[in-house]
């Protein structure tokens, strides 16, 4: 359990402690600006997947709104 917590909080700690050194200059964003580097790079597929897993599993949401709008669950 302790290990799990550590793993869970590692990214948080990294984010908070490293804020000043993390990041890039504005002109260094050419790679980050690519469509495939967007956090949701294929919104249509993500939407379809969310719908499938919403109707097949007990969990939903996380990335965005838990949503629903479907009588399937």
């Amino acid at each position, binding site marked *: 359990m302790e290990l799990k917590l550590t793993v869970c909080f590692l990214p948080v700690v990294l984010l908070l402690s490293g804020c000043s050194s993390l990041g890039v*200059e*504005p*002109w*260094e*964003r*050419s790679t980050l600006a690519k469509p495939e580097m967007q956090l949701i790079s294929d919104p249509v597929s993500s939407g379809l997947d969310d719908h499938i897993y919403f109707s097949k599993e007990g969990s939903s949401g996380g990335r965005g709104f838990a949503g629903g709008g479907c009588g399937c669950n």
Partner: protein
Amino acid sequence: MIEGREIDHLVNLKAEEGYWLGSFEAMASPCEIFMEVEDQNLAARLLDIASVEAWRIESKFSRYRSDNIVHQINNSKGRPVKVDDEVAHLLDFAQQCWMLSEGMFDITSGVLRRVWHFDGGSRLPEKQDVDQVLSHVGWHKLTWSRPYLTLPDGMEIDFGGLGKEYAVDRSLLLLQKETHGAVLINYGGDINAKGQRKGGKPWSIGIENPGQLNTPMGVLKVNQGALATSGDARRFILNNGRRYGHILNPKTGWPVEGALRSVTVAGSTCTEAGLLATLALLQGEEGEAFLKNQDVTFWVTP
């Protein structure tokens, strides 16, 4: 207007030894077209095509006009402006240059001229004035999402650093569609040549400021390829014995220290050669080292 156009837009064609030489004025520079073609009619047509293209680009991208897209963008007061494909391509190119140069090449830096006057005088601008203008500089502060450009109020763009070289390359492309003969274009020292001359002779071009090139006095020999020059040794401020060159750092708003006075770069296109020359100036004291690393032929005036 028609009169003005006739006066401004004069072309002159004369026969030289084995080629035709056309000349006209555009972009505040003398422009020359060297054409190794037999037919005078063809030469006249080529001159017409090249000059029309140069004037088209000048009128479309000049920041001194009030009837073009650049004026529209610079007076958009923060509203999005929809641009055509050509402007979009130039904006894409400007963005890539900005990224490749890590922010040093910036088409929004022109507003710094409001506080900097490189007239050979001694007056430096006040720091707070520079800082005030600098808040309107920075490509990352505008929004470029093809085909819309949104420029925050107070910012300006200026294609001056690209326009002449772009016009040379564009004009040459258009001429190549018309002839296979050897052609050289020289717009105010920015040069591009295509096609082998008969007998393999190089073109000889008179150069205004030969001090910057390791060539015989005032004459440059060119076979094929492009040459572009950046820098102007005459534009500076001399303050307390210190020389401030006219190359401004868009991140600080102050002149780049130790910049070369003039750089000439050879390349396959005038646009690319011109960009490398400009970037070399922006590198300050490291300009020459920068050029050596790019595997290009170049000449510098320290």
